[in-house]
């Protein structure tokens, strides 16, 4: 049986509704929220600040430390709070997705802390987290040469689709989920794949991811611009 129609009535290359906000956490140096469909991620950035414990310091450049976490109420079945194998992995890949655009050479021995909290989850949480974190870093004024946007693409049944939701991820005839993060220039900074997909399908999916990322990138830039709208140098 082929997958002819998406569960929520979207086209195969259509993203869920997106929304972004900046400066949602007053105490943080930078913060942002990114929402795609029912998935909501908030990110807070602290620093650059001195890094402790001292043995972790790098005298050549500052380091980035990411922390991804899901709130216990973010999923239908209560999630046991605290770190898990999954959240440790996602924290690590988030860090690796963001570090290529950051320029932390000016901040030796310092750290930039990024905290990502998923307050509502319906798939694509790591992508929403990376997107929010990238905006929060810009808001905190950390030097960065580009923004990072992320989206998940994949194969559901026999169709290549963008921005899978939970129903599609658990599709009975098999689904492959590929989270992709890209800079504004389409340089890939994150690509994860577990499952089966042919080379042709994979390349098609990647093209779709490009389209999705540029859409997200536009929203990110618009949000950042709007936040500082009307700012003039007197």
């Amino acid at each position, binding site marked *: 049986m082929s997958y002819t129609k998406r569960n929520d009535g979207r086209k195969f290359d259509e993203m869920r509704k997106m929304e972004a906000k900046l400066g949602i956490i007053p105490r943080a*140096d930078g913060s942002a929220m990114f929402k795609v469909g029912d998935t909501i991620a908030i990110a807070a950035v602290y*620093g650059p600040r001195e890094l402790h414990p001292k043995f972790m310091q790098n005298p050549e450049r500052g380091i980035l430390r990411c922390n991804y976490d899901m709130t216990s109420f973010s999923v239908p079945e209560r999630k046991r709070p605290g770190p898990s194998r999954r959240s440790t992995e996602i924290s690590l890949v988030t860090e690796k997705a963001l570090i290529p655009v950051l320029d932390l050479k000016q901040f030796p*021995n310092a750290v930039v802390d990024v905290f990502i909290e998923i307050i509502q989850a319906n798939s694509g949480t790591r992508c929403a987290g990376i997107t929010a974190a990238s905006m929060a870093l*810009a808001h*905190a*004024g950390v030097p960065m*040469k580009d*923004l990072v946007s992320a989206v998940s693409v994949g194969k559901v049944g026999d169709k290549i689709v963008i921005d899978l939701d939970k129903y599609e991820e658990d599709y009975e005839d098999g689904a492959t989920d590929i989270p992709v993060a890209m800079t504004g220039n389409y340089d890939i900074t994150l690509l994860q794949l577990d499952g089966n997909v042919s080379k042709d399908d994979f390349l098609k999916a990647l093209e779709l991811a490009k389209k999705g990322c540029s859409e997200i990138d536009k929203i990110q830039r618009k949000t*950042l611009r709007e936040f*500082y709208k009307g700012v003039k140098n007197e």
Partner: protein
Amino acid sequence: MGKILFKEKDLVVPGDVLAEGMDYLPSGGCIREHDKIIANHIGLVSLDNNRFVRVIPLAGKYIPRAGDTVIGEIVDMSFSGWYLNINCPYEASLMVKDVAEFIERDADLAQFYNFGDLVIAKVNKVTRFSNINLTTKGPGLRKITGGKIITIASTKVPRVIGKQGSMVQMLKEKTNCNIVVGQNGIVWIEGKTSDDELMATEAILKIEQESHIDGLTDRMKEFLERKK
């Protein structure tokens, strides 16, 4: 021939291409990637001499520079001096030899500046590896007693000070307060009555919030007249 893709004072976000070609040079807030100049901060574009492209950041931590007047809190002490938190990524050091007071050998340093004391100091020197040296030798540099401390974004400090200190001068006159604005965004206000201090606080927070709207000086003047 290179070309510039933004006008002066345009708002840019990280990743925006500011200029193409090798005719322009990046000078702060942006970097060169191959033949393009790319913004790496949120900020406003500034062109110097039609050659140097710069982004004046609208966000970011205070980065100390030699000559800045800052206000800091003593957070640590050693044999040779004090360490201050000046709202930047690193602690700043104030060495015994850079202090205005005469300090005898083996004296107890806590007698001069103790934990939690706030000090108006000047940045003496910043080494490449983030060693920040402060001094209290100079007019107006000392330990703070009394008054009130507020913190604002360091990117807004130039607005609070105004052109050649015009804004802070006006605030001082209208509120009868003594005001010291540290480049790191910490402001010390000392007035004769707490009402005066409150008025100055309100005014400074208003400047921080509305600094981007045109006609700031006139609006502040009106605000202060009304409050009197």
